[in-house]
């Protein structure tokens, strides 16, 4: 048996302490784990749902927000970094994040090139004695890495070279994503052992991608003409389709993070419905309250903010807590995107920091609150909210710092290798023609 643990840490800590107290359980744990076909089918499905979030979900969501002349470049960058991540994942990503041994920051690289993984090896789930085929676990986690690096690109579109994007992706995955995934999710990871709660990737995926996006766009600089020239989204229809695909796919992301087809997955599922619903409406209400019309893009933005916020809380909250969390995150993200960004003047083109970064932080801290049994969450007896919030804050703080430094290193290295930014002429003409020799719409 290969012991791979990827745990919404509350469950993990709970389970481990229960074993210590009950010798009968410990004996059961020693028996060979069995693979359940229902769980396996659900996890294979979840992996594909997360892939659908990337292509075409995120590609359309981001592409619609860009200008006509950059539509293909956005879609191509999203798709190409996802593809690249899959290769890197097999090469050393899985080994670095979830391989055997290693320390609290990264695993040992003994599973590089998936060495030792076979159809008969397994990965642990949250239930003692129930395991997943390791290949399925490898695929599921692979899609998480792929979407996270694609999310980062939202802040740098319309001006970053395709070659720079590819170089950046490889470096960023290696020095930022894999270590943070290990710290939060691997059984010997730094935050996992402290009991940090991150059900499906609020820190690993969203704070990580959001902060990285901010740092990347600060180094890269603004688009020519920003913020003086109008740069409205070229197709909110595409963005709307992308939003729908992301929402549907997110059930693989959140409910899939239960690693089994069971009640915990059901809890994550209902929360992914209702937190998102409340967030979509909350954004539109905030628009009305601040004197504007409730907008389609506002609805889509709220949906994403809610999905981001409920990600760490999916299996760590009751439905009512999730509804409140979604609404709060949506309102805070609204102000981050519409007030904070113009005030500070950075060009986070598609608001990756404003929604994933800020929403991720609200979600990570909020999870430390809604986890409470008093608020309908699944916290065990003797759980301390104060202590949990302290652990959450440490995790968030370290992730922010790690992502910021790692991104700066990756971006400057990509700059050395490729020049980073397209020429002003290419930027004005559009990256579709300049970088790919194609036009999105020949009409």
């Amino acid at each position, binding site marked *: 048996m290969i012991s791979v643990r990827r745990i919404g840490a509350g469950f993990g800590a709970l389970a481990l302490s229960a074993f210590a107290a009950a010798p009968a359980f410990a004996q059961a744990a020693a028996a060979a784990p069995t693979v359940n076909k229902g769980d396996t089918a659900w996890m294979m499905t979840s992996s594909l749902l997360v892939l659908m979030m990337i292509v075409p979900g995120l590609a359309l969501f981001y592409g619609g927000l860009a200008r006509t002349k950059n539509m293909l470049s956005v879609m191509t960058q999203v798709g190409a970094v996802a593809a690249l991540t899959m290769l890197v994942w097999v090469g050393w990503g899985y080994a670095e994040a979830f391989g055997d041994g290693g320390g609290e920051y990264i695993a040992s690289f003994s599973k590089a090139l998936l060495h030792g993984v076979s159809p008969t090896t397994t990965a642990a789930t949250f239930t003692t004695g129930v395991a997943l085929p390791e290949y399925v676990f490898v695929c599921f986690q692979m899609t998480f890495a792929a979407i996270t690096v694609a999310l980062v690109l939202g802040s740098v579109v319309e001006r970053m070279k395709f070659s720079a994007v590819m170089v950046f992706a490889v470096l960023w995955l290696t020095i930022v994503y894999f270590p943070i995934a290990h710290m939060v999710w691997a059984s010997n990871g730094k935050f996992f052992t402290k009991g940090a709660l991150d059900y499906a990737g609020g820190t690993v995926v969203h704070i990580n991608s959001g902060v990285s996006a901010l740092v990347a766009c600060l180094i890269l600089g603004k688009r020519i003409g920003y*913020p003086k020239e109008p740069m409205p989204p070229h197709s909110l229809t595409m963005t709307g389709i992308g939003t729908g695909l992301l929402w549907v796919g997110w059930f693989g992301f959140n409910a899939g993070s239960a690693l089994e087809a069971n009640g915990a997955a059901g809890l994550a599922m209902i929360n992914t419905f209702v937190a998102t619903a409340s967030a979509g409406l909350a954004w539109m209400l905030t628009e009305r309250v601040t004197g504007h019309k409730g*907008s389609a893009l506002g609805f889509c933005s709220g949906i994403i903010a809610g999905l981001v916020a409920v990600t760490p809380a999916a299996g760590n909250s009751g439905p009512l807590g999730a509804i409140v969390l979604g609404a709060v995150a949506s309102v805070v993200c609204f102000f981050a995107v519409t007030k904070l960004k113009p005030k500070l003047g950075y060009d986070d083109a598609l*608001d990756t920091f404003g929604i994933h970064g800020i929403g991720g932080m609200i979600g990570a801290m909020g999870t430390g609150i809604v986890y409470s049994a008093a608020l309908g969450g699944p916290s065990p007896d003797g759980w301390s909210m104060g202590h949990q919030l302290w652990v959450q804050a440490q995790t968030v703080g370290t992730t922010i710092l790690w992502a910021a430094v790692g991104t700066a290193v990756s971006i400057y290295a990509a700059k050395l290798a490729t020049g980073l930014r397209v020429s002003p002429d290419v930027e004005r003409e559009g990256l579709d023609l300049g970088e790919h020799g194609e036009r999105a719409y020949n009409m």
Partner: protein
Amino acid sequence: MKLVIAIIKPFKLDEVRDALAAIGVQGMTVSEVRGFGRQKGQTEIYRGAEYTMTMVPKMKLEIAVPAGLVPAVVETVQHTARTGQIGDGKLFVLDLEQVLRIRTGETNDEAL
């Protein structure tokens, strides 16, 4: 022969087309255009970024007719395209020098 160019509100297109067909207009060319006149543009807001759109979408109708039909065309367009609100559009009448039907080679009034 005259060429009537009418700039109208997009949602009035079908109404104008039907009314013109009823008075014997045989054809027209329609394009989606943008422009500005006395009507102010509208404000659009995307995630808090406000853009004032100074160009307003309109429909441009090009209608070539025998000179005798011009008063009826002008009257019909004015009657059907009018809402009474600012932005109803404009109408231009130009002299038409030559017309040719490509398929048959017919010219001028015969080609209209």
